């Protein structure tokens, strides 16, 4: 009985996470510029992986591997924004026509 409750609750979280990932991929195809696409990709990276890993934690029960799954979430929430920031910096560096895509402050934002 307990296993069924775990399966239903964990499965609900996993389905929510999968829907978030689907929306992220849809957004990556729908937007037209990198800095917009990055917004939706980063949503899938943080929220989608949080829901799926949390669902897997409920599904697997409580032992040592649950802590490893929590560590994956912690690592992703630390590393995901950093990688988004680095991709954004690269885009601002190599795009010489950035003013045609979005507003840029006169002093370059520094």
């Amino acid at each position, binding site marked *: 009985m307990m296993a069924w409750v775990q399966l239903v609750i964990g499965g609900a979280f996993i389905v929510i996470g*999968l829907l978030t990932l689907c929306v992220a*991929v849809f957004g990556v195809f729908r937007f037209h510029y990198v800095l917009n696409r990055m917004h939706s990709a980063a949503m899938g*990276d943080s929220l989608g992986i949080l829901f*799926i890993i949390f669902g897997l934690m409920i599904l697997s029960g409580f032992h040592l591997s649950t802590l*490893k799954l929590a560590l994956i979430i912690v690592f*992703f929430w630390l590393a995901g924004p950093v990688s988004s920031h680095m991709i954004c910096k690269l885009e601002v560096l190599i795009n010489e026509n950035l003013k045609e895509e979005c507003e840029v402050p006169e002093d370059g934002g520094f």
Partner: protein
Amino acid sequence: MYGVVYHGFLLTCMLVIGALILLCLIRAVLGPRLTDRVVAVNMIGTMTIVEIALFALYLRESYLFDVCLIYAMISFLAVVVLTKIYGGAYQERKIKGTSHLEYEEEDKEVEDL
């Protein structure tokens, strides 16, 4: 009964994630700019981690979670190295005075505008 539902659910989730990975691969091939491709590669890394975690519960093997954690670190490292290399290559070309990393057609389009 429980085993059939459990394995069937995890297998369905893995199939959905596989389809999403293929879509991300299409985006990486299509992406008009260089950073589009890097974003797509980052997303493929994230979804591969989810796939490995689902597979670990499918097999009930806990050592696959370690693989998952290592893969997360390698995927982050790939993005850092790619951005650093392309930024460095761009600045090197700029010092030499040649054109930037973008395609020639895109430059012409922008000049026409």
